[in-house]
């Protein structure tokens, strides 16, 4: 054993200990710093993940509200006795729960509580991140009225707030940038409520975590009847010239034709496409109305003045020949006649209709004696043609006379040939093959589109060309319709595809009864916005957090 010499200075003995302690301290600090940085990285990752989870929850809330609007099933919703939306989640117990609960209106909003939407992971799963998600939703009218909608239908506002609860101590990232993006509307504090009350309002214990809020405006998509100027099955092609708009022929002096002075502003010049499969392209054509569609994106819609929305869940009712039972059910017929006439007359063994063989034309003129509930019935077997130099005159025996003419072949007017229909007559043409007509060759003296209705049966072509305005309607969901030349089309079109070339315009006639003939098929997004603001706080640049 060695004994330390008394000649060794004492401070040298202590220096070893001090050096060791200092070294260990430095190492401990490095270790602690490393762990702290690592911890912050983990916190940042968890914050980002939870932020995404809360978005998923918020979108689920929007989906629930859309389903309720589409089905009218407001089960599990609460009805508040006010139209003023709450800043924070309201108390559900104070609200009506009568079933079936009425939808939101100008003095009530509906509320779906988070207690009914909470999804919690089983404790046995021991989630490391968020263990619970929930959302609460409100639906109200936002002060919008049916008078503000072209079809007289109600629009709604949905606000959904999704939450992802974080267990344990709630920490946000050290990154100011991350917090500007993902800490808004609170991890620990209900920032919206804090802003409203000007004091920090903590979440209920156990419910802390990021929240995200979405506001969606839902527009009603009408179906049935002459709801809009153009309803296409698979696509619309436009030239960029002309326009699509609306007016009311009842408000226009004789001859009741559209002029720019009588154009609606804003208009009802809407376009709907059931399933765009033909690469529809509006090419910037001015559409004084809205566009609704399903399927592929419709291109070049910058000319649409109203709302562009999707999906369009409407469908086209197939047209059938008048000797089938389904014919009377077509709502277009109902619209013209008030109630659908019984057209089984065409099946009678002893015909009580007037029959002609096809011809050019089959007869030079007819006189219409029928009325709305008991129209004249005429069947033309074969093609109906009015060639150049010929005329086909339709004369009403008195005011408001009605006739249904069934052409089993093609309907063709050409050249200088003309169908001359007086102002007393209302004719429904049912055509089983191609239809070729124009404003030059079909003179609808009434000036009202409702007086001339073409119903196309099967899958054929409709062609309107020339330089004069054609006034009438087309209900041919299987047809490919083309409007060319400079002549406008006044009325409404239902076809499989609609192609408008040249400078032709389409003018929807409000007198077709848009508001009464249509119903809401579904609701579609008119606007989608996520509120990620925190006006009470400033971002890294010292600016208030808004967008």
């Amino acid at each position, binding site marked *: 054993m*060695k004994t330390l010499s008394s000649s060794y200075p004492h401070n040298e003995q202590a220096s070893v200990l001090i050096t060791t302690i200092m070294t260990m301290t430095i190492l401990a600090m490095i270790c602690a710093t*490393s762990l702290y*940085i690592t911890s912050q*990285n983990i916190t*940042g990752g968890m914050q*980002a993940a939870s*932020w*995404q989870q809360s978005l998923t929850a918020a979108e689920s809330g929007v989906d629930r509200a859309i389903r309720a609007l589409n089905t009218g099933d407001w089960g599990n919703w609460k009805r508040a006795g006010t139209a003023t939306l709450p800043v924070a989640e309201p108390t559900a117990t104070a609200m009506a729960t009568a079933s079936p609960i009425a939808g939101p209106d100008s003095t009530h909003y509906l509320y779906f509580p988070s207690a009914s939407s909470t999804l919690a992971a089983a404790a046995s799963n021991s989630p490391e991140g968020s263990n619970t998600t929930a959302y609460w939703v409100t639906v109200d009218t*936002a*002060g*919008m*009225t049916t008078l*503000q*909608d*072209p079809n007289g239908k109600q629009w709604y506002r949905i606000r959904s707030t999704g939450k992802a609860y974080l267990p344990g101590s709630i920490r946000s990232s050290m*990154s100011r*940038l*991350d917090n*500007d*993006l993902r800490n808004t509307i609170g991890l620990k504090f209900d920032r919206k409520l804090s802003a409203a009350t000007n004091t920090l309002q903590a979440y209920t214990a156990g419910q802390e975590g990021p929240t995200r809020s979405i*506001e969606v*405006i839902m*527009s009603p998509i009408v179906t049935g009847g002459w709801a809009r100027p153009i309803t296409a099955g698979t696509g619309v092609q436009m030239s960029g010239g002309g326009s699509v708009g609306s007016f009311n022929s009842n408000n226009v002096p004789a001859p009741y034709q559209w002029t720019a002075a009588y154009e*609606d*502003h*804003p*208009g*009802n010049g*809407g376009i709907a496409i059931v399933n765009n499969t033909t690469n529809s392209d509006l090419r910037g054509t001015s559409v004084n109305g*809205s*566009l609704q*569609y399903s399927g*592929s*994106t*419709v291109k*070049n819609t*910058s000319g*649409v*003045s*109203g*709302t*562009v*929305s*999707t999906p369009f869940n409407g469908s086209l009712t197939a047209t059938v020949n008048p000797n089938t039972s389904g014919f009377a059910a077509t709502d277009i017929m109902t619209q013209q006649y008030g109630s659908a006439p019984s057209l089984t007359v065409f099946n009678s063994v002893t015909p009580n209709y007037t029959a002609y063989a096809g011809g050019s034309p089959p007869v030079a003129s007819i006189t219409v004696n029928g009325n709305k509930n008991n129209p004249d019935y005429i069947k033309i077997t074969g093609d109906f043609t009015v060639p150049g130099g010929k005329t086909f005159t339709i004369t009403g025996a008195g005011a408001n006379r009605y006739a249904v003419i069934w052409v089993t072949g093609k309907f063709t007017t050409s050249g200088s040939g003309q169908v001359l229909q007086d102002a007393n007559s209302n004719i429904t043409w049912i055509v089983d093959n191609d239809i070729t007509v124009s404003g030059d060759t079909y003179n609808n003296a009434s000036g009202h589109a409702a007086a001339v209705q073409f119903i196309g049966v099967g899958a054929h072509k409709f062609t309107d060309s020339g330089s004069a305005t054609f006034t009438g309607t087309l209900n041919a969901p299987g047809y490919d319709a083309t409007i060319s030349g400079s002549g406008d089309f006044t009325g409404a079109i239902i076809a499989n595809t609609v192609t408008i070339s040249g400078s032709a315009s389409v003018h929807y006639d409000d007198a077709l009864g848009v508001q009464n003939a249509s119903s809401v098929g579904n609701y579609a*997004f*008119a*606007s*989608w*916005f*996520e*509120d*990620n*603001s925190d*006006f009470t706080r400033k*971002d*890294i*640049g010292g*600016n208030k957090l*808004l*967008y």
Partner: protein
Amino acid sequence: MKISDLKRDLGMTLVEMMVSTACGSILLAAVVIAGVALQRSFGSVESYSVAEGDQLRVLDYIALDCRRAVKGTVGALTTPTIGNGSWTGGTWVTQPYYRTGGAWTVDSTKPSTLILSLPVYYASGTGSIVTPTLSSGTLSYGSGSVTVCYYQDSTDSTFKREVVLQDSTGTVTSDTITTIARNVASFTVTNQDLTSTISSTIMFFPTFKYTTGTGTWRSGPSTPADTLGVDGDMYVIDPTSATASAVGNVYRRLGGSYSLLQNVKATTVFCNTFLRNASARQ
């Protein structure tokens, strides 16, 4: 045992000294090497974590704004005003304008600038949410405009988000530029059709893999010319390259010439966001 013997034993023989010095040196060297390795490893992990945070942030920002945009386009204005992003006049166009160093520059080969229009959702001054108004089927929020612009600033390899608020007269009431990521090698909007989605590609320099020291990270579509930069600079082939397999190739400049180090693929992120507002799909 005698004390005098003990005193003699306090000394060390030369052999003992050499052995102990050698052992100590080895141990010290091992500790230093391990420490340096741990430091480098931690630095790389930290750099990776920071890069990943930047990538997530960029993706989340772009996705957030794309979802709520009512209009999206790529490019800038025909008459951009240089300085603080006050591009208030002119007509929207697609390429070739891009933004660098606070100025708009014409170069069709340069990265895209993604420009999104948002509804005026907040009231000026109070920040309260605006109630939408409906007029004959046309929905609108507040008056004026909100434009959000994303671009890579090639002068400092940062990725910026610019928010411009204009009132109903077109006057800029607010113009804020925030750097939301660093070390960005390239930014391209790959789908300029914008029919239903906005597809963006953002490539980051692989700083967690290679460090430049005092050098500079650079990027481009093809192998760098030796005249570019100085020794110590790094260079990566970005997604603008016509050769897909070359994207991610990392070069280092030493001795006056660039040499290929490795292909690093993990630094490119893709943002493919569906446009929720149908009006934005063109």
